[in-house]
């Protein structure tokens, strides 16, 4: 075993761990009154270093380390880059939104770094027990972060709901692992497929898979396991919602993809209809629920349920196109969601000064920059061309149609139509001239970290919307790491992969 190579395979995780530990060591020795913002910058630089380390991991040969429990391949590195990027932007957003003497600010940054370690381990772990530990690290950090405004009523309520339901879901996931082990004799994702082939207890494996899917569906807030989402997002501090509605979800989707396509490809006939139903129900419930919301964060919570549904559509496409579309959508959704929460965190503040859609009236007149960026991300969430949201939806539905999932695509497109309505409600509020009698919306000055965060997210969303070819080919490359697809190399003319390839070359 080559020692230095082993360390390189978990380099981003090590960087995040050391950043978190450094923050934990520096925070208590700092004077009580001193501003904790430098610790935030430390977290941001840690995330940047992890991002660079993740990009560097692309140059590593595919392989495992630490007795085969972590694997660096195009798939895990793809999600490493995404998650490190989200943490970077979130750290900048927190730096902008919080008041320097917010209580235990140092711990907030440390928890963000530690949570990132868990999420990264979820994407690179090929041993279900390691994935479970990663899930726990990321979940426990986000439970605490959700309750960070502990002197208010709503924030601890949201943390408690998140914690109770989250632990319940984790128990499902763990029980699923146990049953899988019982049926196949292994917890190694890469060995489960072989174990299934010789297994005499296939029904137990099916039940195990169902439990794993339930646990992960909860984490990605797919309906009918979504009930916690609106309450938790409403109560948690806005900058934290931006983080926890994207990074842990991306990690959970990565785990679901890996488990479905690498561990249980033989059980396709079992999990495909399951995910079909989850996708259809999530899209419908998410969008219909969002229509009735008056609170912006609750509306975005339902919108995130709907987006989980769109993403699950891609899961039912049993080809590289599906996995590539899902990975692409994960990036597009994460970037635009973390971006819109950057604006909300700044305008509404860590203390939630603005909550209702009406509160955002005249935002664009008070601050044209914030209003413009908000409008841009709302358009991207709708899926207007030239934004990442458009190509995300396009690839998902194109892949679905080409694999014969006509009805699912129709449900999805109808839902996208419904979604326009509630996103536009926020957009019109933002651009409504406030009446003279209404209280003046007080928007603090836009700070440097926020500018950086907005510039990053807007730039990535534009790149995804105008020149998606490179990211899409990275996503396809990621999808090809699954052994199921290694046999079907050449795209058959007239199939989705051929269409994708054509789009791909044109986009380049």
């Amino acid at each position, binding site marked *: 075993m080559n020692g230095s190579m082993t360390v390189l395979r978990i380099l981003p995780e090590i960087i995040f761990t050391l950043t978190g*530990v450094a923050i934990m*060591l520096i925070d208590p*020795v700092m004077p009580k009154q001193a501003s904790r913002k430098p610790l935030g910058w430390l977290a941001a630089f840690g995330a940047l270093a992890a991002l660079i380390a993740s990009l560097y991991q692309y140059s590593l040969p595919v392989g495992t380390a630490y007795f085969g429990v972590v694997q660096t391949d195009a798939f895990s590195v793809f999600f490493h880059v995404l998650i490190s990027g989200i943490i970077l932007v979130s750290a900048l957003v927190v730096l902008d939104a919080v008041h320097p003497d917010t209580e235990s600010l140092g711990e907030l940054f440390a928890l963000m770094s530690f949570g990132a370690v868990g999420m990264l381990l979820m994407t690179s772990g090929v041993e279900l027990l390691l994935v479970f530990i990663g899930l726990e690290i990321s979940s426990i950090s986000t439970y605490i972060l959700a309750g960070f405004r502990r002197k208010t009523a709503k924030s601890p309520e949201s943390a408690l709901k998140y914690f109770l339901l989250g632990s319940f879901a984790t128990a499902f996931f763990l029980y699923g692992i146990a049953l899988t082990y019982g049926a196949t004799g292994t917890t190694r994702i890469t060995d489960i497929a072989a174990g299934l082939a010789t297994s005499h207890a296939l029904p137990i494996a099916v039940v195990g898979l169902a439990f794993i899917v339930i646990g992960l569906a909860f984490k990605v807030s797919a309906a009918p396991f979504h009930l916690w989402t609106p309450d938790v997002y409403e109560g948690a501090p806005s900058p934290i919602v931006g983080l926890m509605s994207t990074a842990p979800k991306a990690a959970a989707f990565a785990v679901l993809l890996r488990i479905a396509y690498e561990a249980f490809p033989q059980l396709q006939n079992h999990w495909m209809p399951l995910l079909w139903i989850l996708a259809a129900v999530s899209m419908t419930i998410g969008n219909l629920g969002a229509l009735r919301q008056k609170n912006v964060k609750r509306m975005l919570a339902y919108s995130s349920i709907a987006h989980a549904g769109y993403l699950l559509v891609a899961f039912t496409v049993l080809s590289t196109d599906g996995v590539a579309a899902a990975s692409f959508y994960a990036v597009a959704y994460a970037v635009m969601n973390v971006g819109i929460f950057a604006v909300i965190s700044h305008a509404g503040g860590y203390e939630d000064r603005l909550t209702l859609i009406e509160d955002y009236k005249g935002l664009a007149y008070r601050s044209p920059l914030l209003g413009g960026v908000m409008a841009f991300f709302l358009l991207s969430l709708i899926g207007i061309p030239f934004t990442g949201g458009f190509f995300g939806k396009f690839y998902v539905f194109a892949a679905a149609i080409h694999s014969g999932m006509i009805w699912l695509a129709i449900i999805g497109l109808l839902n996208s139509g419904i979604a326009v309505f509630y996103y536009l409600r926020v957009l019109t509020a933002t651009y409504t001239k406030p009446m003279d009698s209404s209280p003046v919306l007080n928007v603090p000055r836009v700070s440097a970290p926020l500018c950086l965060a907005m510039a990053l997210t807007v730039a990535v969303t534009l790149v995804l919307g105008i020149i998606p070819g490179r990211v899409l080919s990275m996503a396809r490359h990621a999808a090809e790491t699954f052994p199921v697809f290694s046999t079907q190399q050449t795209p058959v003319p007239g199939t989705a992969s051929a269409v994708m390839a054509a789009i791909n070359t044109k986009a380049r």
Partner: protein
Amino acid sequence: MQSHPYTWNYLPLLIQVVVAAGLGLAIVGLSWLIGRGRASKAKLDAYECGVPVEGDARGRFSVRFYMVAMLFILFDVEAVFMLPWAVIYRHLPVLTGSRMFGFWEMVVYLGFVVVGIFYVWKKGILDWTNDRGDL
């Protein structure tokens, strides 16, 4: 040797369940049948390890107990992880294929534990009489 169904391996477990349930029922049932059932104040009081009952169970106590209990569990669990390591320490060079790998892994682990203690200490949580403790 005669082959029998796999589930027969659980027969002792079934016997144990039956015996345990039977014993419990027998003891309670017999004392109900044979016992004379003369109630007195001492008999009907809440059982408090034989000590006379005093006060209300719903008293208030310092939140510090909770912090200390939590820290105790944390460090207790951390110490538990060292036991299996110590048991197989001699075999680790063979198992891991590297002479000092097992040793350094535990050094890293203990490093994290020390960071935790340092953090708790500096936050003033171990200082019982300190009101500035970050509770």
